[in-house]
């Protein structure tokens, strides 16, 4: 009987062993591994299996059948996480027919063949947040995606990751008052002022509270707003001026939703208040506006010390490309932030672990730890050095970019 059991267990083991041999194992050997979650590993090894990190550390035995990527004395770090990336979407980012459009899901407009994906991968970004545009007061739902996959569904790793709400002046641009002539199109409408933006927002929240309390549940727009007020979906509030930031903090208190501040150009003016409320901040875009371009619009000044001041005050900061394809890349943004006063370790976290936490995908990406996705960069030198280049980008265990 016992032999029978032993035989049986062997028989059961055989397919498992066979599968073990079939699944590909990749090993990366590197002089220095910046895990971000802990202290750097010298002369370390990362084992990758099924697109995940199977093991990481020193003195790990590399299986015979493993393909080895020898990075020599180069530096290895986690793939970057852009909490506000240039959107790989075709056509208009905004559904402009009205100003409150919570049911607009940007993930339904993802284009796997988009050209911006190429640059995203080349600059080392392996996870990105895609948001609807900023032309509506309540613009819609964003998604966390990876720059890989044949169809939109394969790209998405987190649907309905956040609700985009815009308090900056963008929703007013182009709107007109139907005073002297009958309205010709839907742009004859509110809001035309900062006041009206916040009024519309308050009204929507008020309606959502009323909806949540009522029995009829047949309005998908109100459903989404209600679940944002119920803390099920975080709210990404786009704010630039200090006055708006203060209003945002007040609204979050009033309606008790999970707040994330976007752009936050004048964050340094209210850093203490932001830190006190423990509200995460997603900074960006960082670029210089040449001469007359865009001068009339708010929040176009670049304050390089913004990240440093916010961090020192104790706020959680992520550095991003600010949904602009022409913005500087994440590594450069981190380097500039360090130059202007952000601590080095915080700057590295601000492009990896912190945005992963803010996006709610910290269990999958952001650091190099056992069990996480094998999204790995191999760099020619220190990540914050301007002369450093990205040599290889590994996404879900596969090399997706190689420097020539």
């Amino acid at each position, binding site marked *: 009987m016992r032999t029978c059991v032993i035989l049986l267990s062997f028989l059961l083991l055989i397919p498992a062993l066979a599968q073990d041999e079939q699944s590909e194992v990749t090993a990366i050997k590197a002089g220095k591994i910046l895990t971000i979650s802990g202290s750097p590993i010298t002369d370390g090894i990362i084992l990758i299996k099924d697109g995940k990190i199977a093991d990481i550390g020193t003195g790990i035995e590399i299986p015979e059948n493993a393909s080895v990527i020898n990075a020599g004395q180069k530096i290895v770090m986690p793939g970057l996480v852009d909490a506000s990336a240039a959107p790989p979407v075709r056509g208009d980012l905004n559904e402009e027919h009205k100003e409150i459009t919570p049911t607009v899901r940007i993930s339904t407009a993802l284009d796997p063949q988009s050209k911006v994906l190429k640059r995203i991968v080349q600059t080392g970004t392996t996870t990105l947040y895609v948001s609807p545009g900023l032309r509506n007061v309540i613009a819609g739902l964003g998604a966390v995606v990876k720059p890989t996959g044949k169809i939109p*569904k394969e790209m998405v790793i987190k649907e309905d990751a956040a609700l985009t709400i815009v308090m900056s002046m963008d929703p007013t641009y182009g709107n007109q008052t139907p005073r002297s002539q009958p309205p010709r199109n839907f742009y004859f409408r509110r809001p035309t002022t900062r006041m009206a933006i916040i009024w519309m927002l308050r009204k929507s929240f008020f309606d959502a509270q009323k909806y949540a309390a009522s029995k009829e549940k047949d309005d998908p727009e109100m459903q989404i707003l209600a679940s944002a007020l119920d803390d099920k979906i975080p709210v990404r509030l786009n704010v630039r001026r200090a006055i708006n930031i203060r209003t945002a903090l007040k609204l979050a208190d009033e309606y008790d939703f999970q707040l994330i501040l976007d752009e936050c150009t004048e964050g340094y003016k209210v850093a203490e208040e932001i830190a006190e409320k423990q509200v995460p901040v997603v900074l960006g875009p960082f670029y210089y506006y040449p001469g007359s371009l865009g001068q009339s619009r708010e929040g176009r000044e670049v304050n390089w010390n913004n990240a440093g001041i916010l961090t020192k005050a104790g706020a959680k900061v992520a550095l991003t490309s600010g949904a602009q394809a022409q913005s500087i890349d994440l590594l450069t943004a981190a380097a500039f932030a360090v130059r202007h006063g952000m601590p080095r370790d915080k700057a590295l976290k601000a492009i990896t672990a912190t945005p992963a936490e803010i996006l709610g995908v910290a269990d999958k990406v952001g650091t190099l730890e056992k069990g996480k996705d094998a999204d790995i960069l191999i760099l020619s030198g220190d990540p914050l050095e301007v002369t450093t280049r990205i040599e290889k980008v590994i996404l879900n265990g596969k090399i997706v970019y190689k420097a020539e």
Partner: protein
Amino acid sequence: MVRAADAPQHLAIRAGRIWTVTDGVIKDGVIIIKNGKIQAVRKKPDVPEGMKLLDFSDRDVMPGLIDAHCHIGLSLDIYSEIDETVLAVTPDMQIIDAFNPLADDVKKALSSGVTTVLLAPGNKNPVAGQTAVVKLYGKTTKDRVLKRSGGVKFSLRDDALMSDRRPTSRAGLLALIREELNNAKTHKDDKPDLRIEVLKSVVDANFPAYISAYTVDEIASALTVIDEYGLNAVLIGAEEGDEIAQLIAKQNIPVIYSPVLLFSRDKDLKRVVKMADSGIKIAFSSKSPRTPLSSLRTSAITAVKYGLDKEVALKGLTINAAQILGVAKRVGSIQRGKDADLVIISGDPLQPTSTVEMVIINGNIVYQRQKI
């Protein structure tokens, strides 16, 4: 052109080869037609006495071709006749109401060998209206119209986006379609609403949805919506469908393919072949007036040139198209009991040198090639 005012009750056609499509090729056979229907397909060349005989012993006969997506007979300025763009959602519009069977382009099209077409509204409305299946000739409406309403056309194309009307963005387009389908799903019968009832039949009663989608992301969105609502769907266009052919095949969605003749690169010309090889049911279309109706057969010939199986190509012009449009009981093959829609052609239908010599619809000779 010869128009038979009174078609003989009985007619026999003797042919060198009969391409039945469903029963293979019959050499030296005879087709007996009675009252506009095929009464018999015989494998012997003798004809019963007293019957009018059309002798095409050195010619081929095939079923009338089916153009699975076109905008023929919609008269005047085509682009204003097929898109009612004031509202974005117009499932209650019927394209048949704009069809003029006596239009010039319908008469001219008879020489192409096409006998049945799917008429569809345009791409500028996310929910554009109801399609129709008609014949290019018929004495009465009953003879001519196979399906007054064959399904609802949806558009996931960028054409459906407008700067001054909802939707303005792709995400908004999908949100709008979901909103409408959800509304239809939860609609109560006590409040009659024609618009919603049409969509309700799409969501609840398997009324076909013809979804226009060309690029990979458009097709992927279409597949998601089809899956979500369990729609009885057909894809129109699907130009880049080969990239996700496995997914389309897995969901078993038939495709009405864009005119192959619109393409010029080898890569694009091979796409339809790859899709058919993956097991997707394909029907060809001319999208007339984008390409003339006469190019429908050329599209299939071009696909054969790039590797498509000849039988699949012929079926894509006939029986597969009929099945996709839901009219296979009446047209699409040469079989006993079906309508006598026949094309007499000078040789193999998939040879570019073969010419259409005569077209018969419901037993009436509607086109005869002039001898030069």
